[in-house]
């Protein structure tokens, strides 16, 4: 079996999840606590990947990344980088596509904390930054873990978007889900089965670990 598509999949999922973690923290914080008009609009935009078919996102990204259109042209002329058919392009697409899977659990985790924790920190002279990183985040670890793993798993399972903008290049954009699809197309079922089994087993293991860890975290909290 060719392990390259699997390795590529996990590399993509890891990088995407790490980037999303950094990007989503301020967004989740902002959505959880900021008071502003037009919140519905922002939430709707972030939630779009949940409901839009991946082919829609893939189609628009294909156009956006193409050097014939202004965004792709801009990136190519400034950075000399072509996003379509590249690993960086896949990372950007995955970040957009998995955004709600990171933002929503973190936001829910933050909102489930009693408001008095945040306020107590303020009355102890701490600014929002310290309050966020030293009080709020450490107390919603289960939510962070859930968010990270959902994002990771969602990126592993990504197919439609990659198919649209990836170009199926071995070692660059040919991830496991696409490899499975190709093998099925070529009527090579044993190979498809091998990839599928690995994905199946790995995702099951990841989710198993997460739920076990989360349950034990909750048990410690409730054991008082």
């Amino acid at each position, binding site marked *: 079996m060719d392990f390259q598509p699997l390795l590529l999949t996990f590399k993509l999922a890891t990088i995407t999840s790490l980037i999303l973690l950094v990007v989503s923290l301020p967004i989740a914080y902002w959505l959880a606590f900021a008071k502003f008009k037009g919140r519905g609009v922002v939430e709707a935009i972030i939630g779009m990947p949940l409901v839009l078919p991946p082919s829609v996102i893939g189609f628009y990204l*294909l*156009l956006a990344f193409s050097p*014939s259109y202004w965004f792709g042209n801009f990136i190519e002329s400034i950075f000399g980088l*072509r996003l379509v*058919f590249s690993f960086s392009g896949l990372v950007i697409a995955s970040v957009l596509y998995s955004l709600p899977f990171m933002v929503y659990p973190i936001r829910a985790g933050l909102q489930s904390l009693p408001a008095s924790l945040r306020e107590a920190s303020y009355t102890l002279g701490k600014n929002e930054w310290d309050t966020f990183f030293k009080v709020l985040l450490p107390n919603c670890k289960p939510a962070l873990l859930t968010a990270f793993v959902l994002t990771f798993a969602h990126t592993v399972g990504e197919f439609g978007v990659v*198919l649209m903008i990836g*170009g*199926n*290049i071995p070692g660059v954009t040919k991830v496991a889900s696409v490899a499975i699809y190709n093998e099925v197309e070529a009527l090579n079922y044993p190979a498809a089965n091998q990839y599928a089994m690995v994905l199946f087993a790995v995702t099951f293991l990841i989710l198993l670990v997460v739920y076990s860890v989360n349950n034990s975290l909750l048990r410690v909290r409730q054991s008082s």
Partner: protein
Amino acid sequence: MRWLSLLLFLFFAGCDKPSDKIIIATAANVQYVMKEIQQEFEKESGKKIQIVVGSSGKLTTQIREGAPFDVFVSADVKYPQEIFEKGGGAEKPKVYALGTLVLWSKDIAENDLTTDVLTTEKVKKIAVPNPKVAPYGEAAIQVLAAKNLLKTIEKKLVYGESIAQTAQYITSGSAEAGFNALSIVLSDEMKGKGHYVIIDSTLYKPIQQAAILLKHSDDSPKKAGSEAFYQFLYSQKAKAIFRKYGYK
């Protein structure tokens, strides 16, 4: 009570009984031609047919799993042959047309559009249908190998999942150039989008496109109609339509 019966009526009306309509499983690259062939056939025979489009590989898988298709119009010989060997066909597959490979680009003009331009800086990405599953992709690789270009431009190749997606890569400008089927370039949907040149057909093995009449039980109501369509596919009338779309 009356409301209930009306509701039940609507419910059952929505659930069609197994249709008598003949279903033609059609490879993506023939889909535009098939529309015209369908019109001709329906006019001539008075029978209605339905067209299902997919990649040859996917359709083959579906047929093997018992999809209710009557005729399979494939993009190559390999897939119908596979079905025939597994006992799914009424008779051996037959070639209905030969495909023509073109080099296609959104921005590069016909005069400059040769296989040599692919090695230049102008072309950063070259779109090719996935050679593992698409006969036009296989042919494109044969052409590049024959011209001794494969090694130099291998890094530029990107693979479309189907002939249609490859066309999308080319017409959106994501790839500066690419290989495709003449039938796609000449279709109403793609006409006038960019520039193309026909590739010397001696550089690749003929792209034989075959169809197969799928097995029916003797008492199947669709048997006669399916046979009629299968015959029509090889008629002079159909051949003329195929030629119009760049097939030989």
